[in-house]
């Protein structure tokens, strides 16, 4: 039972990070109807920028507490990634609006490869360690242990997700975003500047991605140029699981996927009599993705649609 609860806690931490990234996918999909394949790379760049700032600050001998240094790093990573999101949309998606579906997919993949290579140029091919600045004391809850850092990650994710929901539901920007996602042409007629809204959506999603990147890097104490690929794919799975285009769905899907993955990795050995081990953790996300798309393509919270293109 202890293991069970421990896996649920691990899954919750992992899942809230997935949820944060999934929001970026789902927002872009909701508005433009396309999958931003380069979003995983935005997450990676966010982590890398933060690490660079943090280690520069530490080497410069500034006397600041650890959390303040990480905070500064994150505050640099957020605008950097927002800018990146803006550029991605401008370069790869805007010229192709209304083109065949395959074209933006290919540009996104091309962009994703380019960003990885740029990351290699700047940060190299090796794993970069994230300095131990944050409180990693463990707390034990009902026999399961969790670090204070992980508690912070979960809480921060919840705050950010609530914040995003408030922005989308209550503000003028949010209303414009919802209008654009329903019908860009009509939204334009109603005085919404569709281009600005799309740019804003990309920037908002990328900013969340940057924070998620920092969380991944602190949680695993390392970052790598290729880290965005797998986590991006899983976050996308989470978005599909919850019903793509639906913000609440992305959050639910993310947390659910995190928990499924942790439980799966924890119990696969017992279930298969030791034949498969926890190194198969990554297949759960794909299995879930395939099963969801077969049995409920609209996702858990998505609207029922006759035909998903």
């Amino acid at each position, binding site marked *: 039972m202890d293991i069970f609860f421990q896996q649920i806690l691990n899954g919750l931490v992992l899942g809230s990070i997935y949820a944060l990234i999934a929001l970026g996918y789902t927002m872009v999909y909701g508005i433009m109807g*396309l*999958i931003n394949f380069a979003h995983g790379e935005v997450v990676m760049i966010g982590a890398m920028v933060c690490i660079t700032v943090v280690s520069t600050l530490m080497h410069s001998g500034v006397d600041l507490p650890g959390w303040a240094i990480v905070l500064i790093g994150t505050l640099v990573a957020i605008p950097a990634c927002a800018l990146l999101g803006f550029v991605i949309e401008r*370069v*790869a998606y805007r*010229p*192709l609006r*209304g*083109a*065949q*579906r*395959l*074209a*933006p*997919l*290919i*540009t996104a*993949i*091309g*962009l*994703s*490869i*380019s*960003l*990885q*290579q*740029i990351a*290699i*140029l700047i940060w190299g091919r090796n794993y970069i360690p994230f300095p131990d600045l944050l409180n990693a004391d463990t707390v034990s809850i009902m026999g399961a242990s969790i670090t204070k850092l992980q508690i912070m990650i979960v809480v921060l994710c919840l705050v950010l997700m609530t914040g995003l929901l408030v922005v989308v539901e209550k503000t003028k920007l949010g209303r414009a975003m919802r209008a654009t996602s329903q019908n860009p042409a009509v939204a334009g007629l109603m005085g919404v500047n569709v281009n600005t809204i799309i740019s804003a959506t990309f920037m908002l999603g990328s900013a969340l991605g940057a924070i998620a990147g920092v969380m991944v890097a602190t949680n695993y104490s390392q970052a790598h140029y290729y880290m965005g*690929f797998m986590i991006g*794919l899983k976050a*996308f*799975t989470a978005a*599909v699981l919850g019903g793509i285009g639906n913000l609440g769905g992305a959050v639910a899907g993310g947390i659910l996927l995190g928990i499924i993955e942790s439980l799966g990795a924890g119990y696969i050995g017992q279930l298969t009599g*030791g*034949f*498969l*081990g926890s*190194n*198969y953790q*990554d*297949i759960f*996300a*794909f*299995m879930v*993705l*395939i099963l969801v*798309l*077969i049995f409920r*393509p609209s996702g858990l919270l998505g609207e029922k649609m006759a*035909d*998903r*293109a």
Partner: protein
Amino acid sequence: MSKAFDSKQIGLFIASGIALCVLPFVVGGALGNSWVRIVDFALLYVMLALGLNIVVGFAGLLDLGFIAFYAVGAYTYALLGSPHFGIHWPFYVTIPLGALFAAFFGILLGTPVLRLKGDYLAIVTLGFGEIIRIFMNNLNAPVNITNGPQGINLIDPIRVGAADLGSPINLFGMSLPPVYLYYYLFLVLTVIVVIMASRLQHSRIGRAWVALREDQIAASAMGINIRNIKLLAFALGALSGGVAGGLFSAFQGFVSPESFSLLESIMILAMIVLGGMGNIAGVILGAVVLTIAPEILRDVIGPLQMKTMGRMLIDPENARMLLFGIAMVVMMLVRPEGMLPSKRRKAEFKDAKEAAAQKG
């Protein structure tokens, strides 16, 4: 096709045939045997790209996990023809077997995704490809099947009777190294795949695929069995992927999960898209260009930097991939229909452009 070719076409045909036959000697003589090896790989990629083209170009089903079928073919050959299990079956058993396995996996993947289209299909196929790779990477414990990340070594070369393509053969006083021998084998098979693809394209099945690609509902109203025709596309595409995989295994003598990453799937898709989706000549061009160009870049980037800057600023491998990524983006922005588009697709792109222009 029923009409006789005119003499000009026959002349062109014979000329290109001769050119292809002497190509390895020209390339090998001028640039060395390592370039003949690259030409061999180009042929392998032509086969792969033509296989994927059946799924993506003809039937319009976006598949990002195509490399999984290549992997199935390669591992079938490797496991049944290497000291790993001590089994040494001949290639004329293992390659067809690998192709059949690949086709089976194609149907296995195709069945659950029948209802999916576009981006969703792309993601599911991508996930499928990754699952296959993860299994290959981890199936070394507790029972060692694939030997995990180390891969399988010392795979048997292809042997035809007494001739062993893995070692040089003396012919008319000349010693032909393996890369030359494999070139001719690959050439023959590539020609077969090209003929198969072009015959398919203009057949009843090929027209059904086009109908499916353009409008699934209309196609099914015209009496096309959507399920069967989709599964056929997946199976035939996977079949040629499986054959290419077996050949790769024999040619390379070594397979590991690393060769079957997502990037390879993307590479093959890029060959099709950049070359001209749906058009066989375009796909061949795309495959050849994308195999050869990175190798040229590899040879050029390093020395160029040494000459102009005096030192290596950018690692050539890094620069090559960066250029590849940028080229993909630029190509889509400038010429989304590819280098050599088919007439039909060209028309589709023109229609889409005009519609977009009218919308404002």
